[in-house]
């Protein structure tokens, strides 16, 4: 995320980070038995994370597309208009 300059790839990296958290959650849910079964509370969170991430990607991609339309680039090193 720090090295790559394409906004799209940065979004992908974001997904990787979320997935890592998901994996941790699922693992904990399996290892922490509740009433003899995996603790499904953790999986619920994963479920919601996936859902929200899907929405987030949709919005993010729409923003990227809009950005690309107006600037013809998605290189984040050149997209620094927020600094002024």
């Amino acid at each position, binding site marked *: 995320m720090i090295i790559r300059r394409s906004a799209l790839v940065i979004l992908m*990296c974001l997904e990787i980070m979320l997935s890592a958290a*998901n994996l941790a959650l699922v693992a904990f849910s399996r*290892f922490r038995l509740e*009433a*003899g079964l995996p603790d499904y509370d953790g999986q*619920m969170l994963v479920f919601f994370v*996936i859902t929200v991430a899907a929405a987030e990607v949709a*919005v993010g991609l*729409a923003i990227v597309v809009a950005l690309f339309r107006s600037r013809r680039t998605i290189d984040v090193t050149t997209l620094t208009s927020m600094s002024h």
Partner: protein
Amino acid sequence: MPLPLFILFSALTLGFAVAVIANRNPVTAALCLVVSFVGLAALFIGLSAFFIGIVQILVYAGAVMVLFLFIIMLMDIEEEERKHFDRLRTAGGIAVGIGVAFLIGGVLWDFDYGKASLDDVPVQFEAAITLREADADSGIVRSANATAALREGRLKDVALVGEKLFNDYNLHLQMIAVLILIATIGVVTLGKKDSPAPDSGSSGGDKASES
């Protein structure tokens, strides 16, 4: 999950995740991410979270990444040109990465479960069935189907997840639904601005049903 499979899928997940970052071609990066997600889903399934695993494939690999590819292709994004990396920045990034890895390793070291294997915590069907029967007696709605499956020694993952979702997380589910609706509207609005762009508008909404 047998150890060889675990190693295989972990390697798949990690390796392709690294490839996502290392690749300069966005299409390749996206496809690597798909493979990584499939590996991740396999890991989920190995942790007997079937539903989450399948949802991972369905949503991420099936929908989200297709969207990514779509956008990449539509915008015809070329490979990032090879720029001279800022030494300081790269060094800083690596330092933070190593630091976080070190921290996580430290946490794991102190953490009992970190050293446990899956066989140490088998699913206890007997206990689960007893508890569910007690629940049924006290009037808490439980899926009879899932209980029957537990008696057969099968972990009916979807039923259990659904039970939890609609019993305890109903409000959250509805809130998520509203969130997705808002996202859909937002995407359509964003996509409409300049010229009618049917693709981004229509594909933006498809998560609504899949999740």
